[in-house]
């Protein structure tokens, strides 16, 4: 059963990223996602970038046809929403490092806010191709997080991979947990930085999704289904899934390299 929502607000976050806000009552937690149906077009999984209260939001990066189409949606337009689905970040640790690349910040921002609201200390290593693409940079600062940015083109902050910032921080500072979301090669590097140190790492993953109910097997990932066992996985779980960072399944279920 889908709920039809009318988009209330559209915010251009970066040149390639748009947030859509809409009224949606179902309770949700940071880490969870919804299925967003663009009538007449596809339906895609999207992390909730705003989870609290009745006005939820998703933040969409242009990838292909449907995400482009979603970006053209504006106030007054209708979307079909179901969910939220999936698991959530455990908000109990106190000193939290976030490592976000690209649209990965979409799922990390509400998690960071929730952690701050509980009195947690939040540090954010935020990466993007260039300065203008740094997602939710203000939002992280506004919540009182320590933010350090990295850009591929050096237009701002560290010139290079965000994982280099993360690696330095993990080595220097004592964190109780690391949360990361972004390309899987990036997340593999974060895991590598944390390896041998006792800090637990949780990664938010993306896989092709159809049912989001843990039934159709589209999002099969090793012994897991990303839609119900994830999208947040522990480093330990990821060692049991050899596909991590290497393979995903396409719409037909074929295992293809990432």
């Amino acid at each position, binding site marked *: 059963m889908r709920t039809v929502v009318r988009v209330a607000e559209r915010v251009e976050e970066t040149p390639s990223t748009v947030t859509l806000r809409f009224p949606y009552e179902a309770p949700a937690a940071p880490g969870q996602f919804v299925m967003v149906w663009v009538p007449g077009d596809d339906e895609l999984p999207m992390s909730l970038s705003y989870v609290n209260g009745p006005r939820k939001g998703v933040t969409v990066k242009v990838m292909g046809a449907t995400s482009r189409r979603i970006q053209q949606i504006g106030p007054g337009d209708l979307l079909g929403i179901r969910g939220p689905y999936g698991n959530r970040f455990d908000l109990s640790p106190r000193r939290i490092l976030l490592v976000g690349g690209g649209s990965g910040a979409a799922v990390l921002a509400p998690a960071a806010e929730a952690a701050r609201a509980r009195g947690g200390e939040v540090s954010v290593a935020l990466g993007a191709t260039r300065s203008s693409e740094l997602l939710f940079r203000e939002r992280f600062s506004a919540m009182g997080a320590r933010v350090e940015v990295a850009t591929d083109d050096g237009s701002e902050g560290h010139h290079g991979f965000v994982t280099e910032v993360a690696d330095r921080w993990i080595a220097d500072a004592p964190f109780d947990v690391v949360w990361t979301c972004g390309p899987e090669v990036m997340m593999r590097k974060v895991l590598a930085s944390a390896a041998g140190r006792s800090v637990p790492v949780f990664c938010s993953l993306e896989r092709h999704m159809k049912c989001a109910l843990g039934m159709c097997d589209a999002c099969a990932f090793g012994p897991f289904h990303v839609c119900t066992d994830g999208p947040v996985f522990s480093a330990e779980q990821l060692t049991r899934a050899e596909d991590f960072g290497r393979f995903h399944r396409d719409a037909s279920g*074929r295992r293809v390299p990432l």
Partner: protein
Amino acid sequence: MADLGVECAGMRLGNPFLLASGIWGESGESLAGAVRAGAGGVITKSIGAEPRAGYPNPTIETYSEWGLLNAMGLPNPGIDEYPKEVAIALRAGAPVIGSVFAGDAAGFAELARRMAALGVAGLELNLSCPHAEGFGTEVGSEPRDVEEIVRTVVRSTRLPVIAKITPNTTDPAALARAAERGGAAAVSAINTLRALAINVRLRRPVLAHGLGGLSGRAIKPVGLACVWQIYEAVSIPVIGVGGIATAEDALEYVMAGARAVEVGTAIAFDGIAVFERLSRELSGLLDELGYARLEEAVGAAHPSKGNAAPASAGRGAISGAR
């Protein structure tokens, strides 16, 4: 503790609960996971000759917790990619049944031959998908076609062949008889019911394909009627499927004539742990009813087959059945 083991279509199952085709059935690790969760056997997603992406999303719509509409469009990685998945599934130790679909008898036979070579314990022919054009019901609605397809497949393999029958028909028993004539080792029933959901606010069908198939608790009474009619019509075993979510549902199917059952949609609502629960609860229910073995209950609700009360039943049970 009642014995849940059954002999069905030449396969020995530790319990009667099979994973239905299309649920947790695309990847080898998921199939293995279903076995670990307690399935007596697993049926793969229906596999075709080529990789198929299936229909665009939305491909499913829930109908409260009572039903589920889907129009996946038979997505599958194709038989070329499938050996590695089956290999992983087989390691879990329970029988793996390979489901296949094709547009004609020769296509079915070729896929069956290739699936058989992978070491599966049996084959299920999907003659009954209600929404995939050129396949499923389109090839499985005429007894003549069903008989020809089954016969051609049976000639091409030594494995037991299970024909999966559509409920979207006037006479499911006629289709089952055709499968029996063609040499099927068993028939399974039912696949989903042709169905539709419309979103009135968006003024369009919810599923991208429009029409889909209804599964889940809503269809149990329809599946039971099909199994009942088929059991009266054929001598080969019947496998019941449609809306099973409790041990009592499963026992209804068994008493209607099923030797084994498949479970699909319940996994979406209750998770894969449903297998362990079903076996546990069925054991308890059989104990309560005085059955030492599940097999004694097969067809027990049919007066025509002269079924009697379990030997061990007390007065109340006997009086109930007289």
